[in-house]
């Protein structure tokens, strides 16, 4: 099973819609224990991505993702700039020159992005950041690649389930990274906006690629298209 560059572009375009639509909602979630800028920061970058994506020179997946990383570095402030910029950049490095990627290659891109984000921000699994969604997704992809799974729809659905589940399973945790960590115990019982964003994006991808799936966490249900 190979994933075409066109599908990756479609996923990015869908992501931009998700993020821009939730500009204020994601910021409201960030305001519960953080500083209320997450949605705005991300949307600032993805508005540019949405507009530029059709026109940019994108000979291959790696070049396309590198360009996205540069847009994020120029336009996204806050922690989200370095986190998402690093993610795109690290994924770009291992997809240089490819116009389609295998499932194993996709798993490698996500894995490299996750490693890069962990190195940049120092967060671990359980610190109540978007890594709590991304790390299990990465493991699921690695396993799927190793097992030679071919049903991409089922795999996407299962990744979305994982991320969506992370919203509820991390809700009661105290944040250890980001601004939310500086309010101490008060971050418990608030959802992490980064995890909500990842879960919403994956759920919106399901819809975009014709995979049936209903959101579970209330925040994700509220945020999906």
């Amino acid at each position, binding site marked *: 099973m190979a994933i075409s560059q066109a599908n990756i572009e479609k996923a990015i375009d869908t992501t931009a819609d998700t993020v821009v639509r939730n500009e204020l909602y994601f910021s*409201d979630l960030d305001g519960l224990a953080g500083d209320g*800028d997450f949605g*705005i920061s991300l949307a600032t970058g993805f508005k540019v991505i949405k507009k530029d994506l059709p026109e940019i020179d994108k000979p291959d997946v790696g070049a396309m993702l590198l360009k996205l990383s540069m847009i994020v570095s120029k336009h996204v*402030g*806050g*922690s989200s700039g370095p986190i998402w910029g690093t993610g795109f950049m690290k994924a770009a490095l291992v997809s240089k020159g490819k116009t389609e990627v295998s499932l194993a290659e996709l798993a490698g891109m996500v894995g490299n992005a996750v490693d890069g984000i962990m190195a940049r921000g120092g967060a671990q699994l359980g610190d109540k950041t978007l890594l709590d969604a991304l790390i299990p997704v990465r493991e699921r992809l690695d396993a799927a690649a190793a097992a030679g799974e071919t049903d991409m729809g089922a795999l996407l659905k299962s990744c979305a389930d994982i991320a969506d589940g992370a919203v509820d399973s991390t809700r009661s945790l105290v944040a250890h990274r980001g601004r*939310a960590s*500086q309010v101490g115990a008060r971050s418990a019982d608030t959802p992490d906006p980064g995890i909500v964003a990842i879960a919403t994006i994956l759920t919106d991808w399901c819809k975009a690629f014709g995979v049936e799936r209903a959101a579970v966490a209330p925040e994700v249900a509220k945020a999906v298209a």
Partner: protein
Amino acid sequence: MKKFVNDPANFVPEFMAGVLAANPDLLEGNLEFQMIKRKDGPRADKVSVVQGSGSGHEPAHVMAVGPGMLDGACQGPVFAAPPVDACYETIKALATPAGVLVLVNNYQGDRMAWDTAVEIAQAEDIVVDQFIINDDVAVQDSLYTVGRRGVAGNFFVMKCCGAAAEEGQSLAQVKAVAEKVNANVRTMGLALTSCIPPAKGTPIFEIGDDEMEVGVGIHGEPGRERAKIKPADEITEMLFAAVADDLPFTSGDRVALMVNGLGGTPPAELYVLYNKAAALCEARGLTVARNYVGEYCTAIEMAGCSITLLKLDDEIEKYLAAPAQTACRIF
């Protein structure tokens, strides 16, 4: 939204354009990267001191640029660290053989952005080093968190580093000044209201008419606890004890005392707080050699305050007394 704003997406470049328009002889900038620098720098023989963080803390950070203070600064959107590119362009614009010192307030977003920018600059052989400011006693420090925030004490680090750099000290020496000041400064803040980032358009948190947030930072993030509002003197006692006990300051010390407004608190109220804080210093045997009452580091229009104590020695006092000039002026 009770704000003077056009398109919220242009708020930061528009206000920076205003700062540049008001200070044509002192400052110049590159608004593509939300950057402002001294017009007369960088100089080959002088260390450049730079900073950059979210907007909404004015006069920090771009309004702290000028002789004797910062050589340059860049701003992100309101309360969001500047994008990596802005940090990189700021370092590049102030690069000099004497080196660039980046003063980073300890927020994860700022740190990640500056870390990345410094890495890129160093790869291009720009001489640059960083220092992390973390004066906020409200945050419980621990191995597992990002640690104490940098808040109003930042002013003293900028002022002293700016003066030391102006004197012609080396990059290592200016960084040592930052270390010394940061090691001797403590701050604690408190908010009575939330605030409204222009792009968000609504308050970051809800708070009752009789409530206050204790131990807030400068980004409208909630504090460590919510409590019933108290008389000004009790609030001052609480904040003062938190900072004075932390270092600890001891009888006989000379100190600088800052009562900083978070944006929405009028000067008269800050002087009510100062009046009590000065008395508390005296009661502890601390001599207030210099005082600072006003807005030094704000959270847009949040009603609130912070109290900062800086332990002085002859060197720090000399730097504090050195002349400086920024976009903030009265006459």
